[in-house]
């Protein structure tokens, strides 16, 4: 797995000389000595644990797991609950249940110590005595991360005890409240918010749930400061981020980019080859953007949102002209419909109906009624569940019907195009959760 | 006032209370049956174009409160009626009395359950839903216990129309309970079968007990009434206790 060098604005003085790479700087996993040699030792914050929170706020770090929630605010919420009688918990979410994303797996295998530093620093700043790290089922992450933790124990690094959890199968298992529910001994399905995990999470304690990439950034901010962090990226979206580029590109994979880089630049670096018609941004809960129209869109949470897409889990899946966007969307919607927790009526009823409607649209000859019904369903399932899976699916379908409007008309007139019968571009996990 | 009052006066002065006890007891049973019935109708989601669900729910609440009110009257008149000594505590603590202790005790149990059912429902939004549900399940015990109490202690059990009224109440609840059970058949066939068997057994056993107990001679004595507690009332419309 190569880490691509991407041009960025000038870095700050103290940072290590790796060009512009911050998170993943080597082609193979970094051992503890290599990690310390490259980044320097992790700062000790015992005297002023809250100082880190201020620095994170100043850096403007937002969550890298899909929500893009201001990280500093999350820290504050958990730290504020710690009136001495409570024992907060830190949960590092590396579950990466998004099928098209692999950034968390790559980060954990290549720079585990950055993430572990982040966990230790986060725990210190909110007063947590315990931490969990949830890893995905791909590769052998549990073992490699376990080895990294053992390395730290031997080196005498003061970390809180970290328990490694393997995420169970299922798209929703990595969702914040589902993860907390599982850690509490329940099912890995989302729970109703409020109460947020920052108020009541694992064992009813204030729980700080952060994506592993976010924690890696925390480890860097603690070392080099907010100003350094903001030296790349844009004002609205500071810092760098990992994205997973897949689909019709020569060099698919995970790469680190300064936020705000133009989409076209990111895809060019990944070797955009055949003529492409659209790109799926965010993940399976994200949305399509047309190409080449969207090449100038800045890759950042606000930038993509303004264009009708989303940064989400950092997925950029390029759809070549030889594929059918409606067919891909129908397959993903079918997958998502099989992944629902089935706790909430509107989703339990609406998602299978939406999948069925998309099936008819992509692989049948849709009439005006079924298209209207699909639109109605996207409205019916949005905002009416305990989690946002149906919202994401609705957004995906809405954007597909818009971006692939020409295909829609063609399907309505003459049935499914022959491109719809091509093998799938977007990966659908073989075994469904239910 | 000097001298002991004539025995007839003693009996007569307690008669209105005694009649009230019997009457309020019967009315409470009917109201409790109606409350239970509307509760079952809610759980089977009964509705009709002219009968929305909130009507069933509103009736359920009001009928329950009425049933409680009449039960309280029933308890008060029983306690105040000093022909037989039944202290107030016997209304709450079962089986400690001297008059038909077992059958009266059942009444205390039913009364306690009613208080719990209605009390928890008044604070329903302020307690955990699971706890409220657990308490509300005891309604399935409360109603039959109340009915058996009525049949066991009731002076009027052998009266034909009283039997008919009780049978009608039992029929309504049995039908609705079977309807409620049938709804759960797809998910829990085992439990439903057990429930149906239980209902059938209960009806059969109840009928057998009725025939051998309250409707058979000397129930009075067999149920634990002392001779001093028996009373006779003159009058064409009155009946002697058996």
């Amino acid at each position, binding site marked *: 797995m190569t880490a691509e060098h991407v041009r960025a604005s000038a870095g700050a003085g103290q940072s290590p000389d790796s060009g512009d790479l911050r998170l993943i700087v080597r082609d193979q996993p970094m051992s503890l000595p290599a990690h310390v040699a490259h980044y320097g030792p992790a700062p000790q914050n015992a005297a002023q644990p809250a100082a880190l929170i201020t620095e994170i706020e100043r850096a403007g770090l937002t*969550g*890298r*797991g*899909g*929500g*893009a*929630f201001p990280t500093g605010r999350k820290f504050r919420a958990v730290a504020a609950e710690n009136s001495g009688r409570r024992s907060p918990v830190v949960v590092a*979410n590396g579950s990466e249940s998004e099928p098209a994303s692999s950034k968390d797996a790559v980060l954990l295998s290549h720079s585990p110590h950055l993430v572990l530093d982040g966990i230790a620093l986060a725990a210190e700043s909110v007063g947590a005595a315990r931490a969990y790290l949830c890893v995905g089922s791909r590769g052998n992450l549990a073992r490699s991360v376990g080895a990294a933790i053992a390395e730290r124990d031997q080196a005498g690094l003061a970390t809180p005890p970290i328990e490694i959890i393997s995420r169970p199968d299922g798209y929703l298992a990595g*969702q*914040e*409240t589902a993860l907390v529910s599982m850690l509490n001994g329940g099912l890995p399905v989302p*729970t*109703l918010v409020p109460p947020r995990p920052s108020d009541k999470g694992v064992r009813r304690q204030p729980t700080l*749930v*952060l*994506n592993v990439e*976010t924690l890696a950034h925390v480890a860097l901010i603690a070392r080099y400061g907010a100003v350094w962090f903001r030296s790349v990226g844009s004002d609205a979206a500071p810092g760098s981020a990992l994205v997973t580029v897949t689909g019709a590109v020569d060099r698919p994979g995970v790469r680190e980019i300064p936020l705000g880089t133009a989409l076209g630049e990111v895809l060019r670096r990944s070797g955009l080859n055949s003529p492409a018609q659209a790109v799926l941004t*965010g993940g399976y*809960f994200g949305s399509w953007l047309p190409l080449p129209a969207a090449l100038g869109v800045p890759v950042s949470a606000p930038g993509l949102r303004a264009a009708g897409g*989303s940064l*989400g889990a950092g997925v950029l899946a390029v759809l070549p002209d030889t594929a059918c966007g409606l067919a891909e969307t129908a397959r993903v919607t079918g997958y998502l419909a099989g992944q629902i927790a089935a*706790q*909430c*009526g*509107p*989703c339990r*009823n*609406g998602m299978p109906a939406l999948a069925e409607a998309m099936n008819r649209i992509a692989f049948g000859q849709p009439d005006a009624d079924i298209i209207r019904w699909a639109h109605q369903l996207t409205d*019916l399932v*949005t*905002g*009416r*569940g*305990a*989690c*946002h*899976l149906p*919202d*994401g699916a609705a*957004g995906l379908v809405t954007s597909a019907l818009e971006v692939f409007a020409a295909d829609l008309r063609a399907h309505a007139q003459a049935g499914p195009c022959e491109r719809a019968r091509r093998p799938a571009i977007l990966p659908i996990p073989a075994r469904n959760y239910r | 006032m000097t001298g002991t009052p004539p025995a007839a006066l003693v009996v007569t002065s307690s008669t209105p209370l005694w009649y009230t006890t019997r009457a309020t007891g019967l009315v409470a049973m009917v109201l409790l049956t109606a409350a239970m019935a509307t509760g079952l109708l*809610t*759980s089977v*989601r009964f*509705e009709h174009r002219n009968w*929305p*669900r*909130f009507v069933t*729910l*509103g009736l359920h609440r009001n009928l329950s409160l009425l049933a409680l009110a009449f039960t309280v009257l029933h308890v008060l008149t029983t306690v105040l009626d000093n022909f037989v000594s039944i202290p107030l505590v016997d209304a709450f603590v079962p089986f400690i009395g001297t008059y038909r202790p077992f059958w009266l005790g059942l009444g205390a149990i039913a009364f306690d359950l009613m208080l719990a059912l209605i009390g928890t429902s008044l604070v*329903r*939004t302020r307690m955990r*839903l699971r706890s409220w549900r657990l308490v509300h399940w005891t309604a399935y015990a409360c109603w039959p216990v109340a009915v058996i109490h009525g049949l066991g202690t009731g002076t009027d059990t052998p009266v034909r129309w009283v039997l008919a009224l009780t049978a009608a109440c039992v029929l309504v609840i049995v039908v609705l309970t079977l309807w409620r059970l049938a709804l759960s058949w797809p998910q829990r066939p085992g439990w439903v079968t057990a429930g149906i068997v239980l209902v059938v057994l209960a009806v059969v056993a109840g009928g057998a007990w009725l025939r051998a107990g309250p409707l058979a001679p000397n129930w009075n004595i067999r149920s634990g009434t002392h001779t001093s507690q028996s009373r006779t009332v003159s009058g064409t419309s009155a009946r002697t206790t058996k």
Partner: protein
Amino acid sequence: MSQGRDDRAAARAPREFELRVNPIRCDAHGVCIELLPELITADPWGYPRVRPGPVPLRLLALARRAVTDCPTLAIALAERAADQPEAGHSRVRPDS
């Protein structure tokens, strides 16, 4: 100085409430839909859709009844912050 005046004004303002459905508990009994057709409509499967915004004063008593009557306690009255915007549904992303 104006801060104090704002505080007093806020204290005098009538409290506003809005209805919130717990989608996990909701079992589509439909009692709330019957009681408050002005505010709650049924979707094609019988589940409630609450009109966003505060509950009008004249319907508040019915709203309270809907809360206590719901067989699964799936609807609640929550106090709105005075300056809360209408709860529209922007495309929200899942949490981290």
